[in-house]
């Protein structure tokens, strides 16, 4: 397994946000993590990225125990995240934001810029624009592009479709598929469960800090109880 | 007197407590009756009783030098007195005020509690203002050897004495010196807004007008500030013949230095607050050279009457007497004269001070009813070859 989370508990003060989470992501997979608001999806990704401390449990990357490794070092290992809310640096230009993605990398970035501009021609047009003035969709492209600049082994995406128009949503999802096809493993958190499950190979269902289901994505998509609980509103759209 | 450092204390004046006992004069009488304040002597030789003379002033902190000078003068007077095996032994009871007026209450209570019969001090005007009422209430005579704020004598304190001329003598004296002796017709008068500095400068401002000169620039500097360029620009634009500064030595040093840097060539004068070697180090020797400083204190090293004192002081402390040492010595001797004359209670000493006089090494001490000196000379000093040298007195 490339990424393994083993019985992890995370607290916010006295509140236990993750109550013993275990999950695995294999190389080359797209794994989706779905669940209601406040279930702990973002907390899970932040914990994996090392910006939320683990109380008990283990996180392993490529066999190495990274449970207590500082967040910035995990980036060097190949764990990269496009966070919820995009986390664009508002005072930096598109180019500078992309450079932030490659913060610790040495050597030429030309190839990486080309790849990102190739995936998101919009960004190429707006290199000098300041992040804070970009539209929501553009910021999301920038967030994903920036994460790719690190040449991650595992890309963590927290609600990449949030707040986007349906057309843009499908565009983003097809880009994720493309990135995965180019060899990047993806762990995807989504509210937009139908599309996430359509895209993913496997999925976990999270409910108030606990994993309640784990199955191939297609099975969950077909499962009535899952549909009722998480896919209700989206049924029509997914059809 | 010198005021203490700018930041900490404003008007500081050291009051020399009058030490009891006559040093030089009259034959000693046996101690008088009913001196309840006197304690049994542990002291020297033949004495049959003992009293304490307090000291109140800064012995540590930024302004310690002045207090130490005065205390050394006081101790020298007392040790000379004790060497004569007097009937009444006298010891020193000192309080280190650090020059901080907020310590004044503590200091007064300590000395009063220790039953001192008189106090040399407080040293600075600021702490005097705070402490004097306690001594007045306790009926303990207190002689300052250094506090020159005029108002200290105006509070109706019947136990207050001042062993040197006050600022009302110094300010006009300085103005007279600038106008009459140096011939300056246009003068810039600057101060630091402290009660001492502005008080002194205001006396200068009014006296130069009386003397027929013009106050061409009036400005105030922040004694804690470094940049005096706005004041300097005004002075340089007005080109006065002389600048007077009311305040303390460090700001005075900065002012003269920044003036000279901008090409000012006229005379510079400041009061006793600036009469300190640090004035020269702060200004730089070149900038300070030629500056005039005034003080109601006398440089005893120049006084023939003080030769014995100078030698004894050097022998006792390993340094020559410095500012206010002579005044501290004189006021203590006045108190010792009172004790020698048989006065060992605070009230008896107080009466003695009011009705007698004492010729010391710096001057004859004789007090008016408000405790201020009768007469009182203001001495003029000048920085010559990097040394503060006494050059004369102010004209009247």
């Amino acid at each position: 397994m490339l990424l393994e989370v083993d019985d992890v508990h995370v607290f916010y003060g006295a509140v236990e946000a993750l109550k013993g989470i275990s999950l695995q992501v294999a190389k080359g997979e797209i794994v989706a993590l779905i669940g209601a608001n406040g279930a702990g999806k973002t907390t899970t990704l932040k914990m994996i990225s090392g910006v939320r401390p683990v109380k008990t449990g283990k996180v392993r990357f490529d066999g190495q125990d990274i449970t207590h490794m500082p967040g910035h070092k995990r980036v060097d290992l190949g764990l990269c995240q496009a966070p919820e809310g995009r986390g664009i640096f508002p005072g930096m230009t598109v180019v500078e934001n992309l450079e932030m993605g490659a913060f610790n990398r040495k050597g030429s970035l030309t190839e990486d810029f080309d790849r990102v501009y190739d995936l998101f021609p919009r960004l190429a047009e707006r290199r000098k624009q300041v992040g804070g003035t970009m539209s929501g969709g553009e910021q999301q492209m920038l967030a994903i592009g920036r994460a790719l600049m690190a040449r991650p082994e595992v890309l963590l995406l927290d609600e990449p479709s949030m707040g986007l128009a349906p057309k843009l949503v499908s565009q983003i999802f097809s880009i994720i598929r493309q990135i995965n096809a180019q060899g990047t493993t993806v762990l995807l958190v989504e509210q937009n469960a139908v599309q996430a499950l359509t895209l993913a190979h496997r999925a976990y269902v999270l409910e108030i800090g606990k994993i309640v289901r784990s199955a191939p994505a297609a099975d969950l998509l077909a499962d009535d109880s899952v549909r009722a609980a998480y896919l209700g509103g989206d049924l029509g759209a997914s059809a | 007197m010198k005021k203490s450092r700018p930041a900490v204390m404003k008007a500081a004046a050291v009051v020399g407590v009058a030490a009891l006992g006559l040093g030089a004069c009259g034959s000693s009488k046996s101690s008088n009756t009913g001196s309840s304040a006197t304690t049994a002597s542990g002291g020297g030789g033949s004495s049959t009783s003992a009293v304490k003379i307090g000291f109140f002033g800064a012995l540590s902190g930024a302004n310690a030098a002045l207090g130490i000078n005065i205390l050394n003068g006081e101790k020298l007077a007392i040790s000379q007195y004790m060497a004569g095996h007097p009937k009444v032994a006298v010891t020193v009871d000192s309080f280190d005020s650090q020059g901080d007026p907020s310590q004044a209450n503590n200091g007064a209570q300590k000395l009063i509690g220790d039953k001192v019969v008189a106090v040399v001090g407080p040293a600075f005007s600021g702490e005097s203002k705070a402490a004097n009422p306690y001594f007045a209430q306790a009926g303990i005579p207190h002689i300052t050897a250094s506090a020159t704020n005029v108002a200290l004598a105006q509070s109706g304190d019947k136990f207050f004495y001042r062993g040197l001329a006050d600022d009302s003598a110094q300010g006009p004296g300085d103005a007279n010196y600038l106008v009459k002796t140096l011939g300056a017709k246009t003068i810039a008068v600057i101060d630091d807004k402290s009660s001492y500095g502005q008080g002194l400068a205001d006396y200068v401002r009014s006296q130069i007008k009386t003397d027929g000169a013009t106050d061409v620039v009036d400005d105030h500097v922040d004694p804690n500030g470094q940049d005096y360029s706005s004041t300097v620009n005004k002075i340089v634009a007005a080109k006065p013949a002389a600048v007077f500064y009311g305040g303390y030595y460090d700001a005075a040093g900065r002012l003269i230095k920044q003036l000279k840097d901008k090409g000012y060539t006229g005379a510079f004068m400041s009061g006793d607050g600036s009469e300190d070697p640090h004035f020269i180090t702060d200004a730089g020797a070149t900038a300070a050279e030629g500056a005039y400083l005034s003080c109601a204190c006398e440089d005893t090293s120049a006084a023939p009457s003080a030769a014995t004192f100078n030698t004894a002081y050097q022998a006792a402390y390993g340094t020559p007497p410095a500012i206010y040492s002579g005044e501290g010595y004189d006021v203590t001797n006045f108190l010792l004269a009172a004790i020698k004359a048989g006065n060992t209670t605070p009230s008896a000493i107080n009466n003695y001070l009011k009705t007698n006089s004492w010729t010391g090494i710096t001057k004859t001490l004789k007090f008016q009813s408000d405790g201020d000196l009768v007469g009182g000379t203001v001495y003029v000093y000048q920085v010559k070859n990097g040394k503060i040298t006494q050059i004369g007195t102010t004209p009247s």
Partner: protein
Amino acid sequence: MHLHSFVTQFWPSTVDGVTLGSIYALFALGYTLVYGVLKLINFAHSEVFMVGTMSAMWIMHFLNISAIQSGFALVGALLLAALFSMGGSAATALALERVAYRPLRRRGASRLAALISAIGASFVLQQVFEVYYSNQYSNFPRLFKHSTLFNIGSAQITTDRVLIVVAAVVMMVALERTVALTKLGRGIRAVAQDPETATLMGVNIDRTIMYTFLLGGIMAGVAAVLWNVRFEQTRFDIGFLPGIKAFTAAVLGGIGNIRGALLGGLIIGLLELYGASVFGSQWRDTTVFVVLVLVLLFRPSGLLGESLARARA
């Protein structure tokens, strides 16, 4: 009001104001950088400056350099003074971060706690220098003649003024470029704008904060040596007044904003001198603070806005 003296002293006031203002501006950078990154006021920054003035003065005394120098000796003495000043200030800034801030940050303490910690550190540093060094002013030697190069109106432009203003501007530009163009600068801006995302990008927050203190310390060190050149004396409490002015400059320009510090510093230097010439020297500080309050009433985030976060650094 003395509008006449404002007019007659306009040029000298301007020159003196710009000189003082350039020092304030350099000094203000430390407040602004640390605020930008940590959102807290480093109240001990005035002591970072003080240690700089002390270090420069100390090396001159130690090497017995007390007179006018020329040629290489002058350049060497100035560089040495600057190096010690920057070193002393930078070391103090780093030590403060380590001792007074980092432990609190690790424990997630409030900003108020950090503020108290800074005030405490400030007292400690002052008193250490007061007790173990001196409570009197110590002099910094005049290393070169402050001769007049040319005049602007009635103002003499002297060598020391030129040195101060040029050095300050060069350092400000160097810092601005560092923050705008280097990897270190990007890291600082990233932490200022969004520390968590910065970590997700691989930025080492602790190290970036350390570098921020370091840069602020170096700038304060340059301010300190220029202060020594201008006023030639220092004492344990020397940082207090210019510290307040520099902090005010940072707020006036927009705290967190590097260009704002420059603008704020110059405005405050000039206001002090102009205010003093119009109202009398006793009103110079009042003038500054009245203007500050008025500006903040209309532009609560300062003239250029609170930056590092918003605009480009």
